[in-house]
């Protein structure tokens, strides 16, 4: 198990380094000039050159890359003389737009993305598992067929459509729910859930379909296993056979998928946050994009990769812990 962990960690470190390098190359090799962007539009050529020197943009690319990666772990002093600022541990630089440290901008908005991710995950797990299990137990009946066609329909539904239909009917037409605006959970849990309800539903509907289909095939497969036959032969009641013997092993792939999806969502559901105007990490990313705020775009890209790669690792380690066969591959 320890050997497995070390192998995986080495793999992760390599992947993150590659991601870092690619991100860095994308942003620093392409025509846009960070010094010009930082300095603003009415900046004299001399001043731009000065800024470029201060930002260390004259150094060879590999040195710049080394500095950037080092800064993430060790922090970095930027600028010289009276302009010098020290950027602490996870240092991703400063936003061109607001002048704030990128890391702080990301952490400030993390709570919104976490709220969105967790709430919708609860909803889509509920809907997906229920649909999947019911479908599996009534395999090939009309209930199963209807549900499965329904899941294809739900999966094909673009998030914009769901979001705007929900907004139109619940907010604009009937005023049942106020237009979503983010309220912190600690401030007012009720308002928090009320405001997050539509974003949760939107995201959950799009995702639940996949979970339903996966649960269905997984439960069908497990119910055909010899140990389920044994359980039935022992004379256990069907309900107990399903809940105790069928469901538990069938849920392993679902848990794997959940881990990966949550990792992705922590980095922000860019489109859903944009649709509802939720100030999460995804919105930060989209806004920074429109304003060509490179350090923010780059910081979010790296942090997002980190979340995704780490959640993959967590899922794999959990999996290897549950099922020793997975350690070998």
């Amino acid at each position, binding site marked *: 198990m320890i050997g497995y962990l070390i192998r995986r960690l080495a793999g992760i470190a390599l992947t993150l380094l590659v991601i870092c390098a*690619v991100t860095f190359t994308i942003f620093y090799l392409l025509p846009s000039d960070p010094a010009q962007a930082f300095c603003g539009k009415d900046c004299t050529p001399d001043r731009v050159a000065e800024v470029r020197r201060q930002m260390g943009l004259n150094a060879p690319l590999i040195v710049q890359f080394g500095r950037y990666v080092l800064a993430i772990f060790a922090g970095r002093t930027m600028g010289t003389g009276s302009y010098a600022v020290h950027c602490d541990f996870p240092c991703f630089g400063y936003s061109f737009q607001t002048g704030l440290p990128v890391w702080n901008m990301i952490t400030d908005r993390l709570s919104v993305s976490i709220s969105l991710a967790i709430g919708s995950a609860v909803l889509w797990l509920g809907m997906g598992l229920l649909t999947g299990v019911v479908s599996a137990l009534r395999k090939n009946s009309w209930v199963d067929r209807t549900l499965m066609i329904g899941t294809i329909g739900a999966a094909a539904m*673009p998030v914009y459509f769901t979001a705007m239909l929900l907004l139109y009917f619940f907010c604009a037409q009937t005023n049942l729910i106020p237009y979503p605006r983010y309220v912190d959970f600690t401030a007012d849990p009720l308002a928090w859930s009320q405001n997050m309800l539509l974003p949760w539903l939107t995201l959950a509907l799009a995702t639940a379909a996949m979970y339903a289909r996966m649960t269905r095939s997984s439960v069908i497969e497990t119910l055909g296993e010899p140990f389920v036959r044994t359980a039935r032969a022992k004379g256990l009641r069907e309900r107990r056979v399903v809940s105790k013997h069928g469901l538990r092993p069938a849920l392993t792939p679902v848990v794997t998928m959940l881990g990966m999806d949550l990792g992705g969502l922590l980095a922000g559901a860019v489109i859903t946050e944009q649709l509802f105007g939720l100030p999460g990490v995804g919105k930060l990313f989209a806004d920074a994009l429109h304003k060509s705020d490179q350090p923010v775009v780059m910081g979010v890209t790296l942090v997002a990769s980190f979340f995704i790669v780490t959640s993959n690792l967590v899922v794999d380690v959990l999996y290897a812990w549950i099922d020793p066969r997975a350690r070998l591959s």
Partner: protein
Amino acid sequence: MTTTVPAVQEPTERQGQVPASPWRSAWRRLRRRPIALVGLGLIVFFVLAALLAPVLTAISGHGPTDTDKLAVDRFLGGLPKGSLGGVSSQHWLGVEPGLGHDIFARLLYGAQISLLVAFSAALLITVVGVALGVTAGYFGGKVDMVISRFMDIMMSFPSLIFMIALLSVAKDVNRVLLLIIVMSLFTWPYIARVIRGQTISLKHREYVEAARAGGTSSTRIVLTEILPNLTSTIIVYITLAIPGLIGSEAGLTYLGVGVQPPTPSWGQMIADSELYYKLDPMFFVLPCACLFLVVLGFTLLGDALRDVLDPKGGNG
């Protein structure tokens, strides 16, 4: 429908004929599934709409970039005049608020872009994915290790974020071409992985071993023994990849990094319609519905194709 041929006739018919080719029998099985036909119908509908866009807009009389100031009410912030988003004999599906673009024309040309991007990207990922997948699977060893490692790294990239980042930094290039390349870049490993797995299992079949023992070159074995047996897998995976590609194109364009105006596209219409969702719901319903239907079409067909063609699924 010929599916109602009496069953008794079949044996006698079969004796005289060459056995049906696998494709013909797959098509026959596909035809028995109404849901697959619905999917196929939707696809044909949108492909025709995209191909006939110039003809249809000539008939309707409004091009995708024509503005019609008379169809919008400038005292109401440019909202369309009339009910249902300005549906009239002039504008069959109404007009966009603001400039009064004809929605019918923009939907047709939007379908063109959407399908063009999705089909080209699908073609590209098929070529790259199959080439690398077969190479990795057939030759194994170091080649396989390098390719597989590369695929693993590509798949651990947060693809949406990277697609956005790549598209946002490149400014003055052909957006459609760039979109196709960037989308393919992050999608090919998924098909390559499946193809690799299939190739490994095909490699050890008797007829491949026989060909190898007979001194056939590797290239020839791959082309004549392996590839033909991968065709059905490729078709299924591509059909199922297309809805994802269409969705990504719309999403990237919605976020403002995909297809740029004045080229009309669904993603852009959806982004524009956000402002007006309360007052002019038709404006968001139409492009969203098109997106929904075309994605649905490909998913339904792909799902049925998987059941029909997948050797593991249901040949029985």
